[in-house]
């Protein structure tokens, strides 16, 4: 096997070793959070979490559970490093994004620890690529303190119901206003753009609505430029859970089924844009 051509120095010098038969199970999910080039990777025995942030108001996390990998070894309690996500994605897709059916790129990923590069061995059809990506000083990531006990409203939708709405968001509007309510209009998306306002209502008994748990009427605005990148995750996902807490913070959880039928999650947290007063409603 080509992947075993690497020097037999043993894996024990690595704090992280992960192997994957189909690299797209990793690259596709990382693409869903690629709206900034810097990402923080956080690995434990449970798997890898990759975090990307923007403007201290938005955070996206991709979770790749250990079970997705064919081999997954973490030697320390947790391993953290920062990496350029654009470079990582170019390396992961070095053999192209649409490989022929029946062929896939295998990956072995190793990290020796603080100060060392992340090493990738990729193999497809007997051709081997070795990448060494320099890692950077990890930075503290934001803690949104989004706690399920503080969740006020929660909706689970089939993603197709939201896909068109997000793809066609009126980008001349500065904000996306989300209304969730136990009464009419139940779930409403509104934009206020140059050409006027648009409101999109989802009835509570719609086929697309998998769960509807709204306890009180909440209307919050979020910067549309911050939410737009989440479309990448939405496109890949089959279901989305939309939650808001008592502070108006928004959590979007996307359930993504990979090519092998396994489930991964991508989650976006966003701060509300401003408080809106009753008179504006």
């Amino acid at each position, binding site marked *: 096997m080509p992947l075993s051509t690497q020097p037999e120095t043993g894996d024990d010098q690595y704090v992280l070793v992960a192997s994957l038969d189909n690299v797209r199970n990793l690259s596709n999910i990382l693409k869903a959070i690629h709206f900034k080039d810097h990402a923080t990777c956080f690995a434990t025995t449970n798997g890898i979490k990759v975090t990307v942030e923007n403007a201290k108001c938005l955070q996206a996390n991709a979770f790749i559970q250990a079970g997705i990998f064919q081999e997954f070894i973490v030697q320390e309690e947790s391993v953290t490093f920062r990496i*350029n996500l654009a470079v990582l994605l*170019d390396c992961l897709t*070095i*053999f192209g994004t649409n490989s022929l059916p029946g062929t896939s790129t295998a990956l072995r990923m190793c990290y020796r620890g603080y100060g060392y590069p992340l090493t990738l061995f990729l193999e497809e059809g007997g*051709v081997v690529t070795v*990448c*060494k990506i*320099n890692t950077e000083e990890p930075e503290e990531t934001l803690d949104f303190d989004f706690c399920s006990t503080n969740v006020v409203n929660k909706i689970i939708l089939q993603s197709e119901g939201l896909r068109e709405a997000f793809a066609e968001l009126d980008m001349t509007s500065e904000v996306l206003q989300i209304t969730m309510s136990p009464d009419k209009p139940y779930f409403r998306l509104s934009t206020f753009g140059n050409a006027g306002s648009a409101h999109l209502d989802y009835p509570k008994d719609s086929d697309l609505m998998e769960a509807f748990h709204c306890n009180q009427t909440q209307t919050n605005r979020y910067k549309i430029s911050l939410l737009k990148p989440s479309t990448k995750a939405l496109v890949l996902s089959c279901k989305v859970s939309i939650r808001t807490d008592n502070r108006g913070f928004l959590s979007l959880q996307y359930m993504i089924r990979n090519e092998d039928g396994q489930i991964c999650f991508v989650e976006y947290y966003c701060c509300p844009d401003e408080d809106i007063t009753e008179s504006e409603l």
Partner: protein
Amino acid sequence: MRFRAKIVDVACLNHFTRVINTIAKLAKTCTLRLTVDKLYFILTDKVANGGVSMWCELNQGNFFDEFQMEGVAAEHNEIYLELTPENLSRALKTAQNAKTVKIKLTNKHCPCVTVAVELPSLSSSSRIVTHDIPVGVIPRRLWNDFREPSVPDFDVSIYLPVLKTMKSVVERMKNLSNCIVLEANLNGEMNLKIETDLVSVTTHFKGLGNPPWVSEDGSQNSTQDRDPESMAEARIDIRKLLQLLAGQQVNPTKALCNIVSKRIVHFILLHEEVSLQYFIPALA
């Protein structure tokens, strides 16, 4: 000086179109040399095109049903024209399902290559689209500038891997770096490497095979004495390499490259009666 040629076969037309599209991707302007048997598309290594040069050769008999040419003089029975291959490529776009395509040298205000496309028509009258592509006639005293480049005295000659794979690797590498190191040995191994402050990437190909070259006196090339494991390498402009890999539409049956260490990489793509040679100089 006269030239007229005609294509009627759809397969020949498609093939010819693909060759012209490839030339258009590789050169903004080039020289078209016409002889009795062959057409040549030539790009000489001017500084303006980054020192890259090209030599593409096709047998007219493989494409044309009629091919008449009369050069400037009986003893110099050739024509040299300067043209923009993109214009020819655009003219051939309208010829996709043509019944016939006629290409001739005309003089309308200025010298032109005229492409007359006869399109299928339901009525008895035929539909003809005509493109006049202005060209420059290159005088005979300058012909010496367009000699066929000799195969350089290379260190290593090697068959290229599947071009589709090589293209996607070079495409990603282009996102990461401006130059690429191409290295190969006589053991059928080739590596593509980039290195920047952020990342180093190396793709290893093996089992490619080294073409047998026999020099003119019948003896084997001097590369025979070379250590088969030792790599010959050249650092080249990654965009020039990608231009060749992404631009080529000839789907070569044979593709190989010759490396002159630290000097030049010479690519040869062969498809039936078409041969395309492309030279990329090494960066300092």
